[in-house]
């Protein structure tokens, strides 16, 4: 059973489009996260979501918005895609803010 699953695995789209990436965890965790891994393989936190509280990394453009329909899902919506948004996006979850985070296998986003 996949603990943290993301869809799609690959996403190729044009600049200016709006797209979404879905994330689901079946671990019963209370906290979920989104990370961005750039071309230099550097992983950076974008958002965390815990008990309906969203904490945003201040460097993330407001074109990115996470949406959580329930505790097991945290989807990432991106508006007006730009070339610099090309990266691998990872979803993660943890039992709470101090427990280890478990990651999905990533969504590779390519902007043409």
């Amino acid at each position, binding site marked *: 059973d996949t603990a*943290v699953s993301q869809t799609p695995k690959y996403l190729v789209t044009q600049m200016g489009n709006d797209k979404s990436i879905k994330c689901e965890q079946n671990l019963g965790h209370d*906290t979920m*996260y989104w*990370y961005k891994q750039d071309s*230099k*393989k*550097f*992983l*950076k*936190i*974008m*958002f*965390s979501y*815990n008990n309906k509280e969203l*904490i*945003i*990394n201040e460097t993330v453009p407001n074109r990115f918005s996470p949406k959580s329909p329930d505790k097991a899902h945290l989807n990432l919506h991106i508006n007006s895609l730009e070339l610099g948004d090309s990266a691998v996006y*990872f979803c*993660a979850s943890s039992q709470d*803010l*101090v427990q*280890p*985070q*478990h*990651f*999905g*296998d*990533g969504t590779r986003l390519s902007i043409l």
Partner: protein
Amino acid sequence: EDQVTQSPEALRLQEGESSSLNCSYTVSGLRGLFWYRQDPGKGPEFLFTLYSAGEEKEKERLKATLTKKESFLHITAPKPEDSATYLCAVQARAGGGADGLTFGKGTHLIIQP
């Protein structure tokens, strides 16, 4: 600002040749230090959490240690299947940065048969 520096960036070893990976960090109050393994095309896989200086954790051929300024991941008699990128990350007590982990750039480890 929290920072994590890993060295070396890449390491090539012969099967059975033990070595250590270094993770130096600066953080405004350490909540935890984490080691992950990442294989190509996959997400990071959790290995260890260390919470305080002097703490050690072991799993198979891997052993992680922690001081107030750095952590080491010791690999004893590695096998080719240990080849991966090893990531170190810290989480600060202050809860800034969306309570997420601050990662280093990783050490790309290759074990040759």
